[in-house]
């Protein structure tokens, strides 16, 4: 199989250079690109936008947890297995509050964790960038910007010329199979 071009990746010296290059690429009209860094850089949030559904998902999961806990306790205590304890009402909701809270937290936390994995597409043990040997620095001290070939404005020589303008340490053509 002939290798297919995934994109052009440039390694930069520090966060400031990476952010400057990403900002310029954005201004140039590139949209299919991604910046890679060894720790979160909040400036990239506006430059490389993406809709963050996570808070919404977590809220819904939390609400589902509250309702599940209430329904479970109501159904068990009042319908399925009613027990008369000192004449208390069967739907004694104040004593259900604790488990309603616990399941709210449990469902919401599960959604936050598994939602992150889902949105990030994890586990994803293969990625074209892993074929670049230097890319292993990304989890240590490397700052990378990759403009992907599927971008409408992508053009091998033009984009390479554009990226070289920011004086990257190195520039690679990243292949995908």
């Amino acid at each position, binding site marked *: 199989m002939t290798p297919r071009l995934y994109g052009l990746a440039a390694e930069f010296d520090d*966060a400031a250079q990476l952010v400057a290059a990403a900002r310029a690429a954005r201004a140039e009209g590139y949209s299919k690109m991604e910046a890679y860094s060894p*720790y979160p850089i909040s400036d990239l949030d506006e430059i490389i936008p993406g809709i963050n559904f*996570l808070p919404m998902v977590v809220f819904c999961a939390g609400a589902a947890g509250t309702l599940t806990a209430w329904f479970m306790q109501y159904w068990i205590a009042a319908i399925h297995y009613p027990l008369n304890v000192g004449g208390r009402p069967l739907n004694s909701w104040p004593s259900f509050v604790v488990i309603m809270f616990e399941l709210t937290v449990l469902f919401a936390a599960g959604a936050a964790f598994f*939602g*992150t994995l889902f949105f990030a597409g994890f586990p994803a043990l293969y990625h074209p960038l*892993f074929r670049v040997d230097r890319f292993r620095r990304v989890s240590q001290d490397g700052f990378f910007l990759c403009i992907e070939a599927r971008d409408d404005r992508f053009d091998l020589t033009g984009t390479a010329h554009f990226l070289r303008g920011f004086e990257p340490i190195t520039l690679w053509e990243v292949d995908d199979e």
Partner: protein
Amino acid sequence: MKLELQQRRAERVPEPGSAPVIAPGLTFKSITAQISSIVLSRPSPAFWWGAFAVGLLLLLVLVVAVTALLYRGVGLFGINIPVAWSFAITNFVWWIGIGHAGTLISAILLLLNQSWRNSINRFAEAMTLFAVACAGLFPILHLGRPWLAYWLFPYPNTMTVQPQFRSPLVWDVFAVSTYATVSLLFWYLGLIPDLATLRDRATSRTAYRVYGVLALGWRGASRHWRWHETASKLLAGLATPLVLSVHTVVSFDFTIAILPGWHSTIFPPYFVAGAIYSGFAMVLVLAIPLRSIYGLENLITERHLNNCAKLMLTTGLILAYTYVIEPFTSWYSGDKFEWYVVRNRAMGPDAWAYWAVILANVVIPQALWWKRNRIQPKRLFALSIVVLFGMWMERYMIIVTSLQRDYVPSMWWNFAATIWDNAVLYGSMGLFLTLFLLFVRFFPMISMFEVRELLPFSKPDGETVK
């Protein structure tokens, strides 16, 4: 290369009067190498092997004790009516309280933007996880028929019976299992970027594969970081009320019972303060040897010791306040049974426990008012051990002295611990020690990516965290 030099030369200007969070001269490269080499390349120090041997030995004691318990039943323990709860429940409350400081550091201090937490949160979270694992054992072992522990959960069954949701003991099942699950998720989420670092630095094929699978394919993409950060903040926001609720629910196990000495509204805040008090003591007991054995003084600095000690002093003072208020309310209630419990604690057959608590939790920790006791590692270590001892004794005192004197004097009975009571207590310490040492050996004990954020030149605008 340029960045490396810039970072090495950057001066750190701390706020006046405070030590810097981490030492000057650290770079992305150096901290990554320092922390990951403990796992990947450096041979384990002799201390690790020694401590691991002790941990395994104590774990063996636990295995023997639990086997005997499953075979013979809870009669092996010194419990009987009316003292039906003693060591097992004391251990449960003690261990779960210890876990609370880890969540406080990882969640509450994250929300409060306390950057000093970044280099101690990882092992504190691991401590939480293993402390909760130890805690979770005890209520189950104490059940009488531990193999039926799953009856505590509501599930469709042919007996058509269900748990009683008006009972705090059932609340506890949900609180503790939720706490354990959320702590695990939070810990693992934070580990993912660091596991990727280990994958990328691995020298052996096995390490590369194992950490590669565990890292799930993390590649530091900005979108992934954004979700990661959102999820961390949301989990922190969820864990904050959770951690306060867990010990509150644990205290409900006592307060809902109509027993003098237990039936008190002060218990939830009293228990939470005590939990954080003992938890910080455990954080220090772990941090002080770790930093000196692995040479981490540049990352776990005087500032960390000082801050943890201050939090310990604060929660200790809250605890001291409840020690004063509790007898006062008993006396002020005019209830002779309530007042009798107070006198029985201070002057009864287990008065030694009461005075040990006062000495270890109130009197001796006042030494923390002096700064040299807060930053001198050996003294702080000794004080932390005293607090851990005091907090165990406190739970023992609350449980046993309240139960040993029932309303009717014909029911009075004094508890005496058997060798099996002690075996499970020390055995659980072995379980904790073994798990913690394995964690130190196989996972990065300091969060690398969060420490990177503290370094000079980490922000694109050149601003540095002080």
